[in-house]
């Protein structure tokens, strides 16, 4: 294992493992968030309370933060090295026929997602952790009313809805390349599996993009009708 992480392939291995971790996290996140669409909010509040108190989730939370930091750090390091590998740029480049736009702009897409992530943490995570939260009681003691925090923001500010929908689309674009690419880097790929992974990756990216867009869209429409 000596020096594996100082080699290019080793650093890419770190990108793919942290990426896989984030891919799984997004699915869990979307599953919990989909409960927001059950409109009395009880299921979402109970799920949010579970996520905030379950010891396993408590251990995974800091790991998730580390996963994000590692993914961003190594993406920056590798991008910098890649820029140095071509000091004089081509005058005319035509890559439209040989690769997808998303695959060529993963770092830019990642930077946009990072800006969104900062706003997202300020909107919800920070308030949940350090703010004054209203509470509800479903018979088993008081728990945070996370539903009113989320629905309140999405109903009150229409442009937050649009911002979150845009964030979901950028995330989806990032994932169209990210998913199969991480398996390629892990070495779990061949001529047969490549097409399978590309299809699964595209379906996954659409689920994430549409799933995370539907929630603010739901509140945007229901907010307007109230």
């Amino acid at each position: 294992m000596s020096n594996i992480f100082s080699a290019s392939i080793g650093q890419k291995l770190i990108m793919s493992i942290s990426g896989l971790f984030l891919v799984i996290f997004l699915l869990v996140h979307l599953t919990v968030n989909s409960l927001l669409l059950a409109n009395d909010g009880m299921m979402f509040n109970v799920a949010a309370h579970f996520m905030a108190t379950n010891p396993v989730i408590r251990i995974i939370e800091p790991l998730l933060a580390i996963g994000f930091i590692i993914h961003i750090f190594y993406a920056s390091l590798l991008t910098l090295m890649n820029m140095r590998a071509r000091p004089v740029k081509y005058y005319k480049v035509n890559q439209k026929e040989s690769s997808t736009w998303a695959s060529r702009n993963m770092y830019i897409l990642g930077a946009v997602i990072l800006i969104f992530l900062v706003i997202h943490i300020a909107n919800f995570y920070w308030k949940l952790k350090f703010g004054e939260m209203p509470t509800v009681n479903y018979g088993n003691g008081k728990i945070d009313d996370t539903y009113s925090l989320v629905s309140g923001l999405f109903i009150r500010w229409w442009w937050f809805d649009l911002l979150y929908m845009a964030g979901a689309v950028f995330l989806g674009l990032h994932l169209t390349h990210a998913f199969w690419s991480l398996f390629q880097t892990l070495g779990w790929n061949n001529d047969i599996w490549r097409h399978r992974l590309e299809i699964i990756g595209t379906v996954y990216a659409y689920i994430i993009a549409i799933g995370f867009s539907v929630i603010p869209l739901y509140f945007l429409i229901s907010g307007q009708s109230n």
Partner: protein
Amino acid sequence: MDFTLKIWRQENARSKGKFESYNITGISSDTSFLEMLDILNEQLVAEERETITFDHDCREGICGMCSLFINGRPHGPDDDVTTCQLHMRKFKNNDTIYIEPWRSAAFPVIRDLMVDRNAFDKILQAGGFTSVGTGGVPDGNAILVPRDDAEKAMDAAACIGCGACVAACKNGSAMLFVSAKVSHLALLPQGKAEASRRVKSMVAKMDELGFGNCTNTGACEVECPKNISISNIARMNREYYCAKLKD
């Protein structure tokens, strides 16, 4: 056919290059791209001007010597051919054609369109061989090689080392070349014995020479004149992790 050529001129690796414009007329559509450059050079000689330097050798698409980044693509607009097999009928009359050298920190420009691809030789010297002579042609069934493996090894061995993968890659990565060389040996019994040592030293050399990192855009395999698949890159990654785990 008539063309306007914007050709990169550069004195040597240290000097700063620039495009120069040339008009060329009366070119037959069946002229190959390199023949068209020969005709231009003949004209330049007649005018007592400096000729354009470019790499070429066999001119039948098998030696890997010709290069050229033509209108934003390595080996130009035709699929699965090298520049020497590209013909002017693939362009339109009166087209403006931009011709640049491969651009990579690891491939310094020697002059004009000619680049130094010794970096590839150094990677091969780091491990792209079998250390012992495998003797003459063995008896057909003495060493059993599954047909699939033999086919994959042959496909990987089709790499002519032209460097189009590095030129096409937005990161200037040599992963397709190195993975083709690693794969064609690792898949066959004669190459398996040294497979772990080979992949480690070839990857280390590739990193040392300043090639970029693979981000799996797949541009290399599309532009490769020999259709080398990026499945070889996945195989090399597997080989590399397995080799490193044993350390």
